[in-house]
């Protein structure tokens, strides 16, 4: 036995092996750092490029003006308004439906084949390319339901797009509610709905809000489904109702970027800056709301 122990110790303490292990460790340390830095560097470069081109073009007039064939006069106002209206309406449609679905699936639905089937489908829908939702929106909302190429049709289409993500993140938030709290509520003579509103939703709301806002900010950057639904690339008026035709920031940016005049590249960059600011603002709202409602469970 002692012989075996000595052999083992000698093998383990083998200086060559030890050095090799240390080198390997250093190598992977470096490699993993490079992986991290790769994303950061690329992002920083993109940001630098955009800011350099776009910042000089960013002005109050740029926000207030309509698009124009002259780069100097071009503005982003209708697209900005279109994007904001679209995103607001999308949230109003998708949030209650998504959270409602998640509550139903997690708390009410029985554990049967049908529920499994629905859950599987929702997970799959989250992976469907966005342009497919555009086709669906065109067929259903624009044509069959007669909404036309309006903000409303666009919002319903976008709502469909973000719905699976809202449902899945809400389900996860609801599942994270400790069973012991639900039991405490039921043991006090409450119905399921009262437990949902009294314990489950208050506890899950930070997670639900985070998931919702992240998915909505994804929708903010989407262009493909809206092009299919019929968002315009040139709008000379500001949308005033949800039935108006519209354009959005990503489409406007795409449009400018494909213009032959070189200055339009800079206009596009300025548009990207506006879009980035809105995205950052939306994400900050997510963080603020999450922290506000964050409930810390001490163990």
């Amino acid at each position, binding site marked *: 036995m002692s012989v075996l122990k000595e052999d083992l110790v000698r093998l383990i303490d083998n200086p060559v092996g030890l050095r090799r292990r240390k080198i390997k460790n250093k190598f992977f340390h470096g490699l993993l750092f490079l992986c991290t830095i790769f994303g950061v560097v690329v992002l920083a470069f993109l940001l630098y490029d955009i800011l350099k081109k776009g910042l000089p073009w960013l002005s109050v007039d740029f926000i207030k003006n309509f698009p124009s064939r002259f780069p100097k006069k071009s503005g982003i106002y209708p697209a900005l308004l279109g994007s904001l209206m679209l995103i607001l309406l999308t949230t109003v449609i998708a949030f209650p439906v998504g959270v409602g679905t998640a509550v139903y699936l997690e708390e009410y639905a*029985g*554990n049967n084949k049908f529920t499994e089937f629905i859950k599987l489908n929702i997970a799959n829908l989250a992976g469907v390319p966005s342009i497919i939702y555009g086709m669906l929106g065109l067929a259903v909302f624009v044509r069959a339901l007669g909404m036309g190429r309006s903000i409303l049709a666009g919002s319903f289409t976008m709502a469909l797009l973000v719905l699976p993500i809202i449902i899945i993140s809400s389900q996860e938030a609801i599942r994270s509610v*400790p069973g*012991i*709290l*639900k*039991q*405490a*509520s*039921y*043991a*006090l*003579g*409450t*119905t399921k709905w*009262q437990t949902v509103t*009294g*314990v489950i939703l*208050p*506890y899950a709301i930070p997670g639900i809000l985070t998931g919702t806002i992240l998915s909505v900010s994804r929708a903010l950057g989407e262009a493909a489904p809206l092009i299919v639904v019929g968002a315009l690339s040139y709008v000379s008026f500001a949308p005033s109702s949800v039935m108006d035709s519209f354009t959005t920031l990503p489409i406007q940016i795409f449009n400018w970027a494909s213009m032959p005049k070189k200055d339009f590249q800079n206009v596009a960059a300025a548009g990207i800056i506006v879009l980035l600011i809105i995205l950052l603002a939306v994400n900050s709202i997510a963080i603020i709301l999450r922290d506000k409602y964050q*409930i*810390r*469970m*001490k163990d």
Partner: protein
Amino acid sequence: METKIRVENLNFYYGNNRALTNINMEIYRNKITAFIGPSGCGKSTFLRTINRMNEFIENTRVEGKVLIDDEDIYSKKVDPVELRRRVGMVFQRPNPFPKTIYENIVYGLKKNGVKNKEVLDEVVDTTLKSVALYEEVKDKIHKSALELSGGQQQRLCIARAIAMQPDVILFDEPTSALDPISTMKIEELLLELKNDYTIIIVTHSMQQAARISDYTAFFLNGELIEIDETNKIFSNPRDKRTEDYITGRFG
């Protein structure tokens, strides 16, 4: 001595697996009845048949009767939501809601339609006093319940159960997550509460059963081996298996 709960031929199944076999017992009003037995013997499962909390576990089934005040709680006429108002429960680990102390106590009342602020305020005061927590928390009633110590949290959970004005309170190993001093306080509290409530307590600790209960029921493998006055169970059990368990030969 008045019978509060009568259990008749109760069987309980998880799927096809029978967890409780043919339980018959009587539980008396204003007494403390302790359920003891090794882990997995079914004592907690049995406790949860008394307020139908097992119904939240899928694929479970009950046969037989549990009569509270001569009414079968498994009859169609009985609404489990209403039943749980009458049969309160305190859990193994303190589980206050992540709300204020005040909101914890009035949660059940508010959900059951009591909205009058004066009534709620009074309930908070009296229940906090009856669980001997009032002096410790009177200045932070509107602070989070999660700031309390484990023992205080558990007493708050008892206050929360009492606020619903139940007849029966079920305790599922209420002190297993607490230190000895908090445990002692809870035990003292239970001895006071039995003047107003019928108390059933599941406990891992035979000493605890001996200290506070009037009746003790010994469970093994889903069967009720015997139930009797606590001093008889501990001094002179009828069944050999009970004797083996309380003398520490197994479990």
